[in-house]
């Protein structure tokens, strides 16, 4: 007898299809426009990095001066790509886990367009010299309130979906998503209000400190939980196994909630702000290894012994790479924040930038790629066209981010920093050392940019509904037949 399909399973399949269908347009829009902004960001990143070792690259046009291009690169990476990848993942994951179709797809799609328009104008503003210069808040000051209003218009529906959820038990991913949905506005609003709106009312040095906290809080309390939620969904789904330890999952969540908000102000160690702020930041940055370890361990144990699944499934492979990225971020971040190391790495090339790229690309983006490779076939009802394109995306991304992480975080931060700190090395020769590392970083970005050419192309084809109509998913390796044909 054929395997029994229960009516419950049929109902589930229908519900899943309905949820996917209802969210097709906003999700595909967020992913495709996010990928487009990623491409823009990577081009700007290559230009910025090239200018840091060859200042004459692309001439002296003011729109492309290093300071402006770098700001635009980071701004588009964070708010153009990062935020939109997160939004697409949040709305789909929450709808699926709460088993609620979305009826507000039109609203979300409209607001998504507004988000993109604002980011576009803001980026132009930066390149024309209107940026603020403040890290992770580079856009001209009119931009952030509009982004915050847009966010509410996107996020509220997922909160409502959770509120009216069906099914008794709340899954760990839903806790992470709810937390991210609440942390983001609190962090974004307070950071911008204290630093931009009430800039003249406050103290300039404290503003710099709050900015350092803001960057860290955005990373740990928005991007991190969204990526973790995605990993906790994909790993069990693709391997067909339950999460290794639910207790470990809860420990990971609460340790992130308790430790995460303290991190950040170690970036301004030595500045005239209260020293407990600096050291609390450093200590919490080191303690971040705890939630990172809980999550990575849990996910890796869930997929342990299923190496064929990891090898074959694009979404799982990217997700596992993202978990390794999470561990690397936590370890490298902890190393860079040790006060004895911080004196070297604080102002060293790559001490902060390299760490942020490792976190934003090596961890967050790789996990988001995993989510995208999982979600897009389901919302478009087509399969990815070519395993080869996905493979190129994966390996070039990996090479690129390892290059950047190596040249920035390790070599750059410690070698350049050591020269800066050693008093018998003249300051000029410390700066001479930079050349090798900046060239290394440019090379890394070129790899990553190439990787994402493949990704953007592939995603565009899927968006145009040119994917394969197939009953089986696109896998990364050929299945060797284990039975003879006849």
């Amino acid at each position, binding site marked *: 007898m054929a395997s029994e399909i229960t009516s419950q399973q049929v109902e589930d399949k229908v519900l899943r299809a309905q949820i996917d269908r209802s969210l097709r347009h906003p999700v595909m829009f967020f992913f495709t426009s996010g990928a487009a902004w990623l491409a823009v960001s990577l081009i700007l990143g290559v230009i910025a990095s090239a200018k840091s070792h060859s*200042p004459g690259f692309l001439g002296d046009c003011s729109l492309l001066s290093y300071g402006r291009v770098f700001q635009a690169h980071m701004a588009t990476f964070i708010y153009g790509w990062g935020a939109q990848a997160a939004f697409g993942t949040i709305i789909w994951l929450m709808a699926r886990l709460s088993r609620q179709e979305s009826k507000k797809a039109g609203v979300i799609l409209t607001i998504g367009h507004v988000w993109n328009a604002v980011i576009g104008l803001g980026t132009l503003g930066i390149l024309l010299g209107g940026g603020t*210069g403040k890290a992770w808040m580079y856009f001209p000051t009119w931009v952030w309130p509009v982004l915050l209003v847009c966010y509410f218009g996107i996020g509220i529906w997922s909160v409502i979906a959770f509120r009216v959820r069906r099914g008794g038990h709340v899954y760990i991913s839903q806790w992470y998503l709810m*937390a991210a949905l609440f942390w983001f506005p609190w962090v974004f609003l307070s950071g911008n209000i*204290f630093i931009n709106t009430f800039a003249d009312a406050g103290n300039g040095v*404290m503003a*710099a400190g709050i900015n350092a906290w803001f960057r860290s809080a955005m990373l740990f309390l928005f991007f991190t939980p969204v990526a973790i939620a995605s990993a906790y969904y994909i790993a069990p789904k693709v391997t067909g196994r339950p999460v290794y330890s639910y207790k470990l999952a809860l420990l990971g969540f609460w340790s992130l909630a308790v430790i995460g908000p303290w991190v950040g102000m170690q970036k301004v160690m*030595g500045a005239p702000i*209260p020293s407990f702020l600096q050291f609390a930041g450093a200590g919490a940055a080191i303690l971040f290894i705890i939630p990172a370890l809980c999550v990575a361990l849990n996910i890796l144990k869930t997929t342990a012994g299923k190496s064929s699944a990891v090898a074959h499934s694009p979404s799982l492979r990217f997700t596992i790479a993202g978990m390794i990225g999470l561990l690397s971020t936590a370890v490298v971040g902890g190393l860079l924040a040790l006060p004895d190391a911080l004196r070297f790495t604080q*102002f060293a090339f790559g001490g902060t930038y390299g760490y942020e790229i490792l976190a934003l690309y090596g961890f967050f983006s790789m996990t988001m790629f995993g989510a995208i490779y999982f979600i897009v076939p389901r919302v478009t009802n087509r399969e990815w066209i070519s395993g080869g394109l996905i493979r190129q995306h994966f390996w070039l991304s990996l090479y690129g981010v390892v290059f950047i992480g190596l040249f920035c975080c390790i070599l750059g931060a410690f070698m350049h920093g050591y020269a800066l700190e050693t008093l018998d090395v003249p300051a*000029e020769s410390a700066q001479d050392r930079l050349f090798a590392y900046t060239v290394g970083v440019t090379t890394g970005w070129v790899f990553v940019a190439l990787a994402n050419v493949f990704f953007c192309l592939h995603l565009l084809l899927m968006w145009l509904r040119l994917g394969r109509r197939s009953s089986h998913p696109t896998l990364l390796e050929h299945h060797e037949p284990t039975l003879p044909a006849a």
Partner: protein
Amino acid sequence: MTVKTFFIGLIASFALPWLAVVAVPYASMRAVEIPQYDMAKDGKEGAYTPVKSGRVANGSAIYGAEGCAQCHSQLSRPTYAGNDLGRPDLAGLAKDPNLGDTRRESNLWDYDKEPYAWIGETRMGPDLGNYGRRMELLAIEENKARAEELGIKEIKDLPVAERFNVENAVFTHLYDPRIGNVKSICPSYKCFFTTDKVYGQGAVNALKIESKDGEQVIPGERAQTLASYLLGLKRDGEVPDSMNFARNKKSSK
């Protein structure tokens, strides 16, 4: 875990650090007590109010918008955080001709009048906290050298036309950093300058660089504001005894 416990936990775990690290420090740093000189220890009375020169507010905004803070820091860290005080010209001047060793750690009033302190991301270029002082010293040395060349004994007798023009030096750096230092990776801000025809003797603040015959390069508004801000970066010198952490501080009687 119920939704109620979740929210109680979430709010508690975020509110405490947010208050402790963001809100309360923001509020209390708004009105920091101004340090006072002490008659017994400093030999004078009064508030510590270092005077800022130059166009601080506007210059600071341009400094930020152009991303200068990405490559330049403005912080002299105390010894627990770095060796900045050991460098000869980062935290002040080790050999100021009149004052001797003026190096000190940065304090809160160094960043006064700026809504955002440009502590900086990296040191791909030099720390600029005492850029104004280094340029002052450079001017003295250049003038001395020129006076010797011309056989003039005192710098004050050096004609104005022969004196080292600090502002012009800053403009030249902003126009093309590779003129002063061929290995510099600082971006050129040629967009801050205009190239005009020379009328008569030419503009007073025209750059002294190679340019086409009959043409001169003149700094525009942004260049002048930025140069004024940069030359005002002087964060060294005396502080009240209560803020003085120098090793060679004279102990109070």
